[in-house]
């Protein structure tokens, strides 16, 4: 009989404490971000699709058009092309495309690159209306970056 009543009172008290906790939460400011209007900083460790690294000294990429990434890619989604030019040592990169519809984000291209010319981007807004929206021209993206 004693347990019957003590259970009732301790239980009832815990219910009141619970109500107090939620009421406090009700009047606290919200902690979420209204995504399309507000955005949070993306961590630099985020592994988006690949991008060419901008070289601080030359202001351009470091790619030597060796094609290792193209060969290493398990999904065959990278196409690299270059040409010989007068007065320039080695090949000049003319094309670097990524078919992101097939990319599995394994990172083998970044690992294998001999000049560390590739890195993961911070791009996360990846919605599109057609397949071609995901055929990225990586070289053009580099030029478009400031």
């Amino acid at each position, binding site marked *: 009989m004693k347990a*019957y009543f003590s259970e*009732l009172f301790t239980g009832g008290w815990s*219910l009141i404490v*619970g*109500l107090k*906790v*939620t*009421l406090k*939460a*009700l009047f*606290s*400011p*919200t*902690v*979420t971000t*209204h995504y399309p209007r507000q955005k949070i900083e993306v961590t630099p460790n985020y592994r988006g699709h690949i991008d060419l690294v901008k070289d601080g000294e030359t202001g351009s990429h470091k790619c030597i058009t060796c094609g290792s990434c193209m060969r290493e890619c398990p999904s065959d989604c990278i196409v690299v092309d270059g040409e010989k030019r007068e007065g320039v040592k080695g090949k000049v990169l003319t094309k670097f495309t990524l078919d992101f519809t097939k990319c599995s984000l394994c990172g083998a291209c970044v690992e294998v690159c001999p000049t560390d010319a590739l890195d993961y981007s911070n791009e996360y807004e990846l919605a599109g209306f057609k397949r071609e929206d995901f055929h990225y021209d990586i070289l053009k993206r580099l030029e478009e970056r400031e």
Partner: protein
Amino acid sequence: METVTNLVPVLVRLVAFLIGAIVVVFGNALVMGYMERKLAGHFQRRPGPMEVGFHGILQLLVDGFKLMGKQLVVPAQADKRLFILAPMLSFVPVFLPLLVIPFSDKIQAFDLDIGLLFILAVASINVLAILVGGWGSNNKYSLFGAFRSVAQNVAYEIPMLIALLAIVFMTNSFSLKEVVAAQSGGAWFIFFQPLAFLIYLICMVAETNRAPFDLPEAESELTAGFHTEYSGMSFSLFMMAEYTNMFIVCCIATVFFLGGTSGIPLPYFEYTGIIWFLAKVYFLMFFLVWIRWTYPRTRFDQLMNFCWKYLIPFSLVNLLLTVVIVKLI
């Protein structure tokens, strides 16, 4: 000739009631649906609906249109007639209790002598609708949900009735209007019958199948309980019936414990009393949402134990004390 002239005011009253009831049912579903989602958000420190209209105020309207446009899917092995009938059976009776609720002195369709009994009798039809819907769906989750709902509603109706009976003994009347009149001047029955109010409050949550007693639709166990197979408009009929049932039980609580329309007098109080009435009803609704986002769901044996071991004995003791005190005074 005389009977015809007597009939006209009754008919006018009936039409006015029907329009009013439709406004209350749909308006309450819109307001309550929005309030519930918005409060649910803020209880979890997120903003809730934000996109449609200012702070998502049109969200429920848009959802309603979406549900109207959806296909009514009837499961292949379901009992088709019962399956179609259940939402209507659930939705139609919710209009009837609104007949006798005194929103203010002059805003009441009919003042029945047996108002309370009428409400409780009609409100029980909802249990049948849930059972029919659960059975007709031919789905194990639906059937389990329906069984639980029946067991729960039958168990919790007893303490609810006994708690309200204590008030009836004090007022000597089943008429809701007279119960309100007995509380005029701030002598609300919540001050004389706090235990009955508490018991009624708990039973009211259980009767409307809401958290923490939402076992009939426990989503983690039964996907959606009795309305697992329902889609589109039949689903929204169940939803509107649930919200209207919440409104009705809160109205009863307001009438029996919170003094109905009694409050600071406003001009034209015979009509404007509805402001106080609705303020109290929606405060109770807020309390229901508050409870929902505070407590986890009870287990079925806990639910039944709580009813039979605590609520019924306490309500009986409360009734006995009330009877003795009323007799002595």
